């Protein structure tokens, strides 16, 4: 059980669903196709600050998508093999990432401010509401 102490950050919900769990957080962008292992969900992008972390089953918070439209396929495939992030939170909605999230029915929030994203520590415990766009950050 977590303490009740939390703060709320607001974004814009684009795919509904309530998810609670561990957040993997970066203010960098990510390329899903080539940057995330398609079989495991591990971040493998060269020189990425989160290289080696795994986003499967985690609430993945990042700046935006980068590079190929293949992100859609990667997110869709990760969902098929149940290695998908449980929710996505980003600052700039990258179309192929957002499209992939909608296809894969992953609760997603966009338009979070960079300052808010920066304020969330990696591995924090959070709850997100993909309908209202609210992010509850629990502070220990």
């Amino acid at each position, binding site marked *: 059980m977590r303490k009740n102490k939390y703060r709320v950050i607001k974004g814009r919900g*684009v*795919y509904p669903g309530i998810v609670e769990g561990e957040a993997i957080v970066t203010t960098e962008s990510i390329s899903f*196709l080539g940057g995330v292992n*398609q079989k495991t969900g591990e971040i493998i992008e060269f020189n990425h600050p989160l290289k080696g972390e795994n986003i499967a089953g985690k609430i993945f918070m990042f700046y935006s998508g980068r*590079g*190929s*439209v*293949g*992100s*859609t*396929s*990667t*997110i*869709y*495939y990760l969902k*098929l093999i149940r290695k998908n992030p449980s929710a996505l939170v980003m600052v700039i*909605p990258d*179309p*192929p990432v*957002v*499209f*992939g999230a*909608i*296809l894969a029915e992953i609760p*997603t929030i*966009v338009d979070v401010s960079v300052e808010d994203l920066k304020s969330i520590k990696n591995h924090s415990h959070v709850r997100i509401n993909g309908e209202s766009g609210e992010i509850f950050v629990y502070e220990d």
Partner: protein
Amino acid sequence: MYLTKEEERILNGEQGPLLQKAMEIMVRFGDAMRAERLVPIVYAHVSLTSTNIRGEHEFLKSFITEDVKVKVPTTCQTLSIDRERWTELGISEDVVKMAMNIVEIFRRLGIRLTFTCTPYYLIEDLVKLGDHIASCESSAVTFFNSVIGARTNRESGQSGLISALIGRTPEYGYHLTENRKGTVLVKVEAKLVDDADFSSLGFQVGKIVGPAVPVFDGIKNPIIDQLKILANSLALMGGISLYHVVGVTPEAKTLKDAFQGDVPEDKITITNEDIERTYKELTTGSGEVRTVVIGCPHLSLDELKRYATLLEGKKVKEGLKVWFFTSAGIFEIAKRMGIIDKIEATGARVYRDTCPLLMDGLKKKPEMIATNAVKQSYYGQSFIPGTGFYFGRTDKVIKAAFTGRWE
């Protein structure tokens, strides 16, 4: 998002559950991208044809559960096989089986089975200035936006197919006039003498400006195939979906038009040294050439004709693979005109529907590949471990076909 009566009917399931699902996805996506409405499209170009990108074939199989047809004329992207000559390309039977399964799904959807990254060579004047379309394949996106002046975002295979099925796409990004404004002025001082120079130009500009809308000033009388090559390398290195060439492309009659009356956010200059640098940066081989690749993006009829003339009467070096790539549509016409026979009489081969970057066979053993196409050299280096690349001007690449040496 505002929906028309017909769109609401599709959303309510009046055209079946598959289109209902397709419309639901598009409406959610449009809302996410802050589109105010869907716009009808006149054409779509769809990928999902590769056998080696996970999530493409799986999507096709699980999404297309009923007998539906695309609502607008739709072409499709390059396959992983040449249907008639796959054995000589070292492609396995498993890949052929999977590819033929994709062909069958596309045939049933009523998609034109073009299997090419240059569909615009095959659709005549179907797409015109100002038309809304939905295109996959980054180089085709940039070509349609820039050279034709049609309007498309960079679609993924999945979003492209769903747009084709409902005949609409959300109105955001490059569908809106204000986003088509030039942002960076590129002064071209370099002398562009060869097709490969357009590859180099796009490579350097893409690297410097990133996903901007570059406006080129100083490119004189380019031919359409060169604008295609420029589109390809800009998309590759900069994620660029739209560029203008002053006095050449339709939305840039003048410099002022290209910037929609505004001032550029930035200015850069490209010199001969910048062009030369690309040839050095993308050459990793050391002397010996075993394969020559020409036709990235897929060749036009005019390009094939020019290569036939360059090769005429000569013989490629024994044991050397000299590969040209085009679409089946262009191949068929070129064959009738005697162009294919002229090229193949030299020992070179012309392949249809496919691309070395999609062929599994090529990845099995390292090669020494010479090419005048920047994307082959750039991607090939990460896709084909141990392979050496030579990137150079056309005359040098053709010479390598006869000598087996890069010099």
